[in-house]
């Protein structure tokens, strides 16, 4: 600490430059992560929110995790009922609605038992109580819909009424509308409710494998994994997370190079310190304390700047940065900074006191 702090204060300019680079890199990492997360949420908030209360989906094993293609048959539903007490039928169907001015909007029609814990909370208006009534995601308001407005549904070709709005319910970037049991029955085209998936709570690995061995045309997948089946989801996330991974790799190399150059410049000093009796462990400690201080300070400023930038973004730009993600990324960033200084530590361990001193005399 003694040396670390005094040197940081003495060579302010040099370390401010390093701090600036760490700040910029951390800002970029956090910002892109926020976009990735925001985009994920904008795409699939309905499913992501289900993951809070439930854990697994039972889906058609040939649907490649796409809910809109999935159908769980009676036999498999029975198997699940025999094994698990709690399961909810989830119905998903994509379509369009049309207002009285014939302007169309893409929607995802969802069915869930409105008594279940999975059913979203009403933020405006009321829960639908009768047939031809729906609860819609509030993003539909951007299309000009209000509570009490009517629309034409494309499959049944019937007029529906929006009785209330809910928030954060989207599927494949389109607003979700929750239809009643009667309407889902009608949309299912017959006399029984079609299940795109069965939603299960956390039933444990063992039950999952039992189920998987008993189900004939279905499989149990985690809700998290099923996200990759939502059209566009993996593509968006993959490209953004790829950027984040590369940013981390670049950070590691840039920081390693920076710290290395600084260490090389200070090699004579390290030699003197060794000659007057400083242990290698103390020198290592000095470097790590410096790297720690610089990276904590710059990443903290990076976090602040990210949230500031997020506040200044236009509201329809998807951006979301949950605190646990911030904590993970910050931790990772500091680990990367410390990894970047390892090369320097090695160099310091190797430096010979006498050679370093002689080097300056020459």
């Amino acid at each position, binding site marked *: 600490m003694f040396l670390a702090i005094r040197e940081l204060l003495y060579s302010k300019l040099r370390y401010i430059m390093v701090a600036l680079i760490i700040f910029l890199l951390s800002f970029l990492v956090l910002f892109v992560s926020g976009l990735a997360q925001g985009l994920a949420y904008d795409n699939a908030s309905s499913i992501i929110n289900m993951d809070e209360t439930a854990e697994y989906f039972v889906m058609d094993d040939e649907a490649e995790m796409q809910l809109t293609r999935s159908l769980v048959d009676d036999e498999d539903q029975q198997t699940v009922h025999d094994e698990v007490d709690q399961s909810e039928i989830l119905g998903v169907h994509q379509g369009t609605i049309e207002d009285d001015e014939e302007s169309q909007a893409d929607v995802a029609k969802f069915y869930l038992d409105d008594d279940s814990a999975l059913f979203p909370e009403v933020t405006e208006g009321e829960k639908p109580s009768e047939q031809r009534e729906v609860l819609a995601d509030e993003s539909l308001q951007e299309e000009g819909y209000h509570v009490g407005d009517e629309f034409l549904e494309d499959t049944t070709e019937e007029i529906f009424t929006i009785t209330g709005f809910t928030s954060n319910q989207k599927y494949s970037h389109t607003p979700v509308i929750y239809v009643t049991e009667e309407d889902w029955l009608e949309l299912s085209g017959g006399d029984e409710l079609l299940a795109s998936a069965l939603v299960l709570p956390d039933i444990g690995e063992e039950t999952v494998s039992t189920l998987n061995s008993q189900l004939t045309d279905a499989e149990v997948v985690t809700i998290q994994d099923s996200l990759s089946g939502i059209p566009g989801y993996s593509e968006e996330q993959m490209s953004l997370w790829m950027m984040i991974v590369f940013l981390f790799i670049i950070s590691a190399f840039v920081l390693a190079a920076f710290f290395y150059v600084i260490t090389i410049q200070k090699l*004579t000093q390290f030699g003197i310190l060794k000659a007057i009796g400083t242990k290698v462990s103390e020198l290592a400690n000095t470097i790590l304390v410096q790297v720690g201080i610089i990276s904590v300070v710059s990443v903290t400023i990076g976090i602040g700047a990210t949230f500031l930038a997020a506040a200044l973004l236009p509201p329809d730009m998807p951006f979301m940065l949950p605190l646990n993600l911030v904590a993970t990324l910050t931790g990772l960033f500091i680990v990367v900074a410390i990894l970047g200084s390892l090369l320097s530590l090695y160099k310091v361990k190797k430096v010979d006191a006498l050679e370093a001193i002689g080097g300056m005399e020459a």
Partner: protein
Amino acid sequence: MTTKLVLENIGVEFGEGEGKTTVLDDVNVSVNAGEFVAITGPSGSGKSTLLSVAGALLTPSRGKLLLDGQVLSQLNPKESTTMRLHQIGFIFQSAHLIPYLRVKDQLLYIAKIAKIPKQKAKKRTDDLLNMLGLNHRKNHYPVNLSGGERQRVAIARAWMNDPELLLADEPTASLDAARGREVVETLALQVKQQQKAAVMVTHDTRLFDVCDRVITLSDGEVTDIEKVQLKDPVHS
């Protein structure tokens, strides 16, 4: 009288095969407690090299090094670092201060790594800076010091850990004659009073009278050991 430092048949070689140069050849030196020894000799004769060996900074190719009866030539780097910290004070040919430490911190740092209690360290720092006439430069950084001031800070630093053995490589090179003499006399007095041992490399023949013995090195060999008539530097 106890023997503090013993250098036995020390040989130092640099390089391999064709380019091999012998810098020290079979050097024997021993220094007693309370003794202040000068080493002199032409440039390139191996004075600094000998001092480095004595200071456990350089492992000799041959020979044995003893300090207070303990064999130093077989220590691993970690052990010799500890040795340097607690037993040896080294004044390099150039001051080699730490650029980002203020004068008082140069000394306090030694106290810190040697685990000297804070109160005691503060007092010792003040005393040493006083002794070397550096009181008004306490809060200066090395860049803002003159060459001679830097050299004196380096001397104070070497004394800070209260070493058994003081090694000084031309400590008066950048001091004026009067100031140089004063500093060397102070060092000699301390050595005598506290029964330490000191070896100083110097070209300044005028300082020989302060020393107990003068060893002349030439081409890596001891050519002359001159006993200086003992006299008390305090009363000179």
